[in-house]
């Protein structure tokens, strides 16, 4: 294990890092007192730290290689994660779902309003992640402008309310449908594009929506945004701020459940299979008689629909929206949720959203290093678990010698 070669390599890594971090870690220029401080001790710490980290990294890599060669011999039965096998058993599944639901119901009564509010945001990202998962995870269309649909939903409610006084419950489906329409609008010109080109066009689309909102003052009130948006109503009952937040939280819980149900059904449907096939090979897909155009547009529209709905809820929750809420970084976060959690995997996306949204909230003390940690996590993920935290397992259908085909989750 600890061969001379490895020590040499780790040593070179640490030398390189010392060189890289030299300007920030060692030299400190005090511009007021006009002195330069040389913190030579930091060289030592950086060197030691990277040396150890490099060793750990190498060790993990080697373990991963050994593990994967083991798995090949054992076949695919053991390759499935513990969680998947657990969820496959209906008895456990109901227990898990039941307890999760119980936690969700009790949560706001145990924790403060602040915690509830954060949780609501996390749940919103769960739905956003599940929506993007349709486009990226299932249909394999890399969409970097997903936040545009979120913005469409949010502005639909904000503007309808501002100009016409239309309520939340009418705006909810309207926002979703309008976002779906925008999804189709984006989908039509990019039907022929794939991979990098698709990513660039969707990125551009996201920016266009944001810039329009920012600059079309009469329509969207420009950068100052729309304020005084009504919170969702409940049969016209007046609610205090706390109850309103509680109400939105429960609304969001119900909404997450509905989304999971629909996305799960969608994944196993004909359309879902067509998406997966389209992701794998377009020409073969066409040869099988799948209408490429309609399938792709359906992916864009359905993905956008969820974003639109969450947008409406977002507007209702914060009561104020401005174009600044819909920058590229939002798209990047939602995409990271999908990639980190596991493309095409519903449970994975839920975990990804909770981790990526809740961790930064609870680690506020380390907020300066958030991007650093984020980058490190993504790199490690790509090396050690490219399939995401919880990889996707498709339903398998086995024909047995009985009349009816037997369906089981595995």
């Amino acid at each position, binding site marked *: 294990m600890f061969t001379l070669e490895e020590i040499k390599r780790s040593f070179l890594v640490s030398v390189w890092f010392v060189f890289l971090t030299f300007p920030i870690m060692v030299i400190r220029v005090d511009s007021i007192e006009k002195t330069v401080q040389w913190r030579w001790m930091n060289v030592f710490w950086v060197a030691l730290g990277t040396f150890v980290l490099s060793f750990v990294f190498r060790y993990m890599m080697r373990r991963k290689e050994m593990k994967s060669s083991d798995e090949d011999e054992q076949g*695919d039965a053991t390759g499935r994660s513990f969680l998947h096998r657990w969820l496959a058993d209906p008895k456990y599944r109901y227990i898990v779902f039941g307890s999760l639901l119980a936690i969700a119901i009790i949560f706001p009564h145990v924790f403060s309003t602040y915690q509830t509010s954060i949780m609501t945001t996390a749940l919103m990202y769960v739905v956003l992640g599940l929506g993007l998962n349709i486009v990226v995870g299932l249909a394999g269309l890399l969409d970097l402008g997903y936040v545009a649909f979120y913005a469409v939903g949010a502005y639909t409610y904000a503007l309808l309310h501002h100009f016409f006084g239309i309520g939340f419950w009418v705006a909810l489906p309207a926002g979703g449908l309008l976002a779906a329409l925008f999804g189709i609008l984006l989908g039509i010109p990019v039907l022929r594009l794939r991979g990098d080109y698709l990513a660039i066009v969707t990125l551009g689309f996201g920016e266009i929506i944001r810039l329009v909102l920012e600059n079309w003052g009469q329509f969207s009130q420009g950068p100052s945004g729309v304020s005084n948006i009504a919170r969702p109503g409940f049969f016209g009952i007046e609610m205090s701020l706390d109850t309103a937040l509680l109400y939105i939280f429960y609304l969001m819980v119900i909404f997450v459940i509905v989304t999971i149900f629909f996305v799960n059904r969608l994944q196993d449907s*004909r359309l879902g*299979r*067509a998406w*997966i*096939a389209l992701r*794998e*090979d377009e*020409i*073969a*897909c*066409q*040869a*099988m*008689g*799948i*209408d*490429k155009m309609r399938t792709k547009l359906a992916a864009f529209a359905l993905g956008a629909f969820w974003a639109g709905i969450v947008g409406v809820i977002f507007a209702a929750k914060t009561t104020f929206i401005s174009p600044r809420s819909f920058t590229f970084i939002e798209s990047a976060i939602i995409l990271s949720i999908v990639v980190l959690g596991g493309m095409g995997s519903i449970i994975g996306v839920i975990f990804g959203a909770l981790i990526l949204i809740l961790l930064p909230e609870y680690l506020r003390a380390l907020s300066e290093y958030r991007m650093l940690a984020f980058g490190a996590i993504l790199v490690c993920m790509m090396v050690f678990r490219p399939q995401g935290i919880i990889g996707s397992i*498709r339903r*398998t*259908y*086995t*024909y047995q010698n009985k*009349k009816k*085909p037997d369906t089981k989750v595995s």
Partner: protein
Amino acid sequence: MLKLENVQSGYGNILAVKGISLEVNKGEIITLIGANGAGKSTTLLTISGIVSCRAGRILLHDEEIHTLGTDEIVKRGICQVPEGRHIFPELTVQENLDMGAFMRNDTKQIKADLDYVFSLFPILEERKNQDGGTLSGGEQQMLAVSRALMAQPKLLLLDEPSMGLAPLIIKQIFEIIRKINEESNTTIFLVEQNANQALQIADRGYVIENGKITITGSAESLLNNQDVQKAYLGL
């Protein structure tokens, strides 16, 4: 059943097929042979609608199909095995075959067809839970042919099934193509560079050169034709 009348098609500025007329009768094995870049694959892609037809007509049972979309053409019973196999690499063998039956709803018949396909290629049954991408080249080709069969085609378009395969496996695959033709009365339109093998199982053949049909006739007459022998059979 299938008739091409003066069909032209191509990519961008390049006209790859420059006015081809040919006819495929029900129950036949027809082969289209020619060198690289002669327009063989383009002809097939034009029939199945993936490349659009610029001029001329394509008729299936006297119905014009060149204006239809690919999915409509598949619905009418034309199924293509694309060149270079094009299986779904991350779907299992079973799922690949299920995708072949995408347009169908008759569960019972699909199951029967699955058994039939497994009887043609027993190796696929052994590997049915394996990812398509982990199969060997020959197995992938078998999977591609099987997948097309799952669509229950009336006309099967095969694009170079021998590409990149060992001679023994080529022989096996051609044997099965003939078997499919005989047993389920599927009309087969075979595009091949391996002229010798193709002509041995075919009823009739067309030779394509630079986007135009130059020689046509029964498979036997083509095998004995001196020009064909020199150019494509290496005799």
